[in-house]
């Protein structure tokens, strides 16, 4: 029963959250005098012709790829109990610098792309590293410093864009960096779609999808199959216990933030290398903040985050179409917002249910009432039941891990 039950409980939270969010959004739509089922129909209908359906799938995937990376970046830190709200600033800064560097050099195609990716990861890691260093040396809460650094990053990106890195002609309405040459662009996957016998979509499917999948697998392996991943999760579950068993928490904070930042650096690249080829004033914004929502919804597991990113992609695709049914696009924002709120509540409910069932199992095993002893860890707030059962999702500012302050 253990495994199936655990998976069931893991799915229960998000599923419940989705239902609650849909009901609340339905009520909102009804309250403004529109038909909620028409909205649902628009969201789920991918198109009437095969070509339109393929196009819808491409739009969804192209939106989901950066959201997945954003969710992944947030979740790596989350798993250790670090709240990296600075993903927004990390990816914006990484994107503008890698765009400028990518446009300035001329390398053979695969090396050029790789070079841009590495630069973006380094910049993202550096910006997140500031947060980590402040935390371990001065005890500054990463929540505060990463929020603050977002403003610094946006201001810095704005300065760089209008100053030293400006590549667009004087007087142009949109300021951009110089364009990345052909060799630095990521090939698209449209050929794969048509190769599968599908209609050719209007937009190109981002080739960066492949990178995102690879990064997702890498993070998944890192977290669940390595000593580092074990230490990271252990620190997230109980910093004091981890420290007691010999984990160097300070080093863990720095390494984790560097990884989180490096992944964050990738967020802007699907758009940059797949369709825009330059960073400008109109570059897609807000992905870092959406990443927090996606990570929460995906319960910090790479597969969950992929599903959450796809769900957000589906909802975002519907936003223009909803407006055609006289339903404001804000409905999509409401659905996304209520999902995140509901998922926090849903996770808490699922967590309590899991604890109860574990307590009961403990009681059955020892033949004693659950509160008679602390066997099975039933007394503490932390989840018993194996390392994976304890994917704690923080509903607010996580506690300062002990032993981190100097």
């Amino acid at each position, binding site marked *: 029963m253990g495994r199936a039950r655990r998976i069931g409980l893991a799915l229960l939270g998000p599923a*419940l959250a989705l*239902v*609650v969010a849909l*009901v609340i959004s*339905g*009520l909102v*739509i*009804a*309250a403004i*005098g*529109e*038909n*909620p*089922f*028409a909205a649902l129909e628009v969201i789920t209908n991918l198109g009437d012709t095969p070509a339109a359906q393929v196009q819808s799938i491409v*739009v969804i995937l192209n*939106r989901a790829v950066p959201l997945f990376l954003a969710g992944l970046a947030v979740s790596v830190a989350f798993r250790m109990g670090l709240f990296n709200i600075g993903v927004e600033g990390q990816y*914006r800064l990484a994107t503008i610098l890698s765009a400028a560097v990518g446009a300035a050099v001329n390398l053979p195609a695969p090396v050029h792309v790789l070079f841009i990716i590495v630069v973006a990861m380094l910049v993202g890691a550096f910006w997140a590293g500031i947060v980590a260093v402040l935390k371990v040396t001065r005890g500054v809460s990463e929540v505060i410093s990463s929020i603050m650094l977002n403003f610094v990053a*946006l*201001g810095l*990106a*704005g*300065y760089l*864009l*209008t100053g030293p890195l400006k590549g667009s002609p004087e*007087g*142009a*309405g*949109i*300021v*951009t960096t110089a364009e990345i040459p052909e060799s630095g662009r990521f090939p698209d996957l449209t050929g794969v779609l048509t190769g599968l016998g599908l209609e050719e979509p*209007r*937009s190109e499917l981002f080739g960066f999808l492949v990178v995102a999948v690879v990064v997702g697998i890498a993070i998944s392996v890192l977290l669940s199959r390595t000593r580092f991943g074990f230490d990271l999760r252990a620190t997230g579950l109980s910093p004091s216990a981890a420290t007691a068993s010999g984990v160097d928490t300070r080093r863990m904070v720095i390494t984790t933030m560097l990884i989180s930042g490096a992944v964050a650096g990738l967020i802007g690249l699907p*758009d940059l290398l797949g369709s*825009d080829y330059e960073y*400008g*004033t*109109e*570059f*897609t*914004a*807000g*992905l870092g903040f*959406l990443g927090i929502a996606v990570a929460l919804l995906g319960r910090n597991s790479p597969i969950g985050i992929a599903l959450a990113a796809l769900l957000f992609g589906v909802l*975002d*695709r519907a*936003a*223009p*179409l909803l*407006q*055609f049914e*006289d339903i404001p*696009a804000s409905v*999509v*924002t409401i659905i996304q917002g209520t999902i995140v709120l509901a998922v926090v509540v849903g996770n808490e*409910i699922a967590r309590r*249910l899991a604890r*109860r*069932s574990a307590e*009961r199992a403990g009681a059955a095993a020892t033949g004693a009432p659950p509160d008679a002893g602390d066997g099975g860890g039933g007394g503490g707030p932390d989840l018993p039941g194996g390392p994976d059962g304890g994917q704690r999702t923080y509903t607010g500012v996580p506690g300062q891990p002990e032993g981190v302050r100097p």
Partner: protein
Amino acid sequence: MRGARIRKAGVRATALVLAGGLALAGCASDDDGGDGGSSGGSGGGGGGGDELKIGLAYDTGGRGDRSFNDSAYAGVQAAIDEHGGEVQEFSPNDGGSDRVEGLATLAEQGYNPVIAVGFAYGDSIGEVAEDFPDTTFAIIDSEVTELGIDNLTGIVFAEEQGSFLAGVAAALKSETQSIGFVGGVESPLIQKFQAGFEAGARAVNPDIAINSQYISPAGDFSGFNDPARGQILAQGMYDGGADIVYHAAGGSGTGVFQAAVAAGQLAIGVDSDQYETVDDPAQKAVIMTSMLKRVDNGVKAFLDDFVAGDIEGGTDVRYDLESEGVGLSESGGQIDDVLTQIGEYRDRIISGEITVPTTP
């Protein structure tokens, strides 16, 4: 078995909520038939055979900003009143990631012409226009001549000329000889407003103190839709001795007006005649004038041309002081005493005697 019971109860509760939602939804859909679509336009099918189906894609903030976007809508509405037809509106999401899809969907659903409101569409409209060669596109605030796409027209305005007159008015009316400028986003477009305003004020008094600030840096659109920060910036200017603040900050402008009310000083509106568009009488009283950017006229003229089949395409149509595409509003009567002087500057700009800078 306690857990299982709770879970069952949870499921039951969820089902109940869901059912309630459905029931309510049913009621709502019943009385939906009456209003017939809120954005359907007032033309009401008067067009006959080839009815005008206009696609209107807004800048961030969407309709209801009492400024730029609303002005575009007014132009469309005027065209529908005259020629009949309907309009389908689209507002992009906050990050602006679905602009291309929005434009493409409008074209795909048969809306023609499709008008993109705002320079933010500048880098996406080209590719969409090429994907839909049979649809006529127009973009406001962005020049398209260089792109050379036949089915795309740019509608641009000489904001710096109108802002110059706003600067003249501010300098003539300021008692402290200290004025302010609040820009929404530090982009080349808004810098045109700033450049014109400062040049106009200095033309009257070279020593006037001008405090120019922006709500958000380039690349962060929030400045067009953040009244709270607009209010803080304007507040600081009034506290620093300025008695007139000009805003070019879209939806953030209401914050500037609130600050003006609180400080008992004056403000200058932008795009629409904001004296007419604000609801609050207290705010009406502080709006000295507005720099009119007649987006409505530009849109209306474009649609008139479209109906008449006169769209040239591939070019930019420029609206300036001479064609009355920009100017100052006089409602409220607060600048009546300086109208002659403003008129003189207007004539000198039109005659070419004064060339207004476009960058500060």
